């Protein structure tokens, strides 16, 4: 059972109160985009073994979206942060490198 903290309302709760929303920080390609970019946005996913940045929604709470950094191999949650950003905040990256010194952030997609 994951325990997540919603950065919007500050509540810490079990995963049943939240809903997972898939990979975070995807670039949204729309009208005028190439087929390649649109396919990447809709379907292509990093699906890493290890650190994963993802969207969550506090459905049975404040209802707001937020982002989380989580390890898909150990289910450790490094931290949660606002959804109103296109980059991972430095304090989250610091928390990850603190726990995973060898981890390298892959390029933005």
């Amino acid at each position: 059972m994951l325990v997540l903290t919603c950065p919007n309302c500050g509540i810490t709760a079990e995963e049943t109160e939240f809903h997972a929303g898939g990979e975070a920080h995807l670039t949204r390609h729309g009208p005028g985009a190439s087929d390649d970019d649109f396919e990447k946005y809709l379907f292509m996913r990093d699906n890493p073994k290890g650190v994963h940045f993802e969207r969550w929604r506090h459905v049975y709470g404040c209802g707001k979206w937020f982002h989380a950094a989580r390890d898909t191999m150990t289910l450790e949650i490094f931290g949660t942060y606002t959804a109103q950003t296109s980059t991972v905040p430095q304090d989250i990256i610091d928390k990850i490198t603190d726990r995973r010194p060898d981890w390298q952030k892959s390029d933005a997609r």
Partner: protein
Amino acid sequence: MKKYSAFAIAREALRHHTGWTRAWRDAQPKKRYDVIIIGAGGHGLATAYYLGKNFGITNVAILEKGWLGGGNTGRNTTIIRSNYLQDPSAAIYEKSRSLYETMSQDLNYNVMFSPRGVIMLAQTHHEVRGYQRTAHANALQGVTTEFIGPEKVKELVPIININGPRYPVLGGLWQARGGTARHDAVAWGYARACSDMGMDVIQKCEVTGIRSEGGKVTGVSTNRGDIDCDKLGMVVAGHSGHLADMAGFRLPIESVALQALVSEPIKPCMDVVVMANTVHGYMSQSDKGEMVIGGGTDGYNNYTQRGSFHHIEETVRALIETFPMVSRLKMLRQWGGIVDVTGDRSPILSKTPVDGVFINCGWGTGGFKAIPGSGWAMAELIAKGRSPLTDAFGLNRFQEGRFIDESVAAGVAH
């Protein structure tokens, strides 16, 4: 390979069973193979088997990082059916189901195929219409299915409660030729047949890199040294994204955990497979008497081969409503497998951006039923460069918008 038969059992009984030999050789990797298959689960072994049987390609290695059939092949609920909606799905799943019928004879290995029949319950009006549509589509595809009413469901499954307060049973999609098979035996049977054709099944051999030159594959690096090959088949289900990353491309796949559990063994009480997709539960009774129960997937990416406890609770809660007797059962074991889910819930059998590398993945929550058909089609794809069974399942369909939408047939339950 010594043939298994009633005569062989009698012969061995007379000499204290001293004459049985290993079912497959414990092979060591050679320097080079014509074809390397990564993943010795059902799909990988079936691919190798049909490469040898249908195309005479036997200089083949099947590499497995763990033990044979230890991934999703040993973690599923063994259900076999082919009642899908879209034509390309019906073609490959029905091919697969029909191959299961003669598999024990073909492999000379008892896979305990039991065509006991599969019911998919319709518990909402949407499902009634959805399954009626599927039944009509199946009729056009030549797949024998039938939409049956609640009385017929009750007749087939006496322990069911068709008047549940939340989700009454309004009917069901019945495939009489569906059923179950013993999952370990499928992997073991194929491994024995592959080994007999001279192929190397190499366990505890983890691929750590994929080598290519000028955009063409030349071999793999493993924890047991480099191995060269002309063609490479990746058949690793949940870990496909990880391997694709090594080869330098991405996949439209996310890996999530799917759980199953079994009860204590009880006397025979249900001789068909029942699936209830609305409430995310499905159940059959094994030959040992255990009720084999499958549930839903977790919503988030996961490689831990276990799942969230609350999903088990949801599944069991739903099943108790539909099968009240389940409430008296103790559950014995629970486990999870990592399933590779695509955007349209259909598999990928395709060439890849790297020449000579072929991929077979994305079977998501329903790969077991597809093992022989998938192997048959994948072998043709590797040997000839294309197969009528795989044409629609290419990686390019996501860019071209030619989805094979099976989210109704395959969304959760299998």
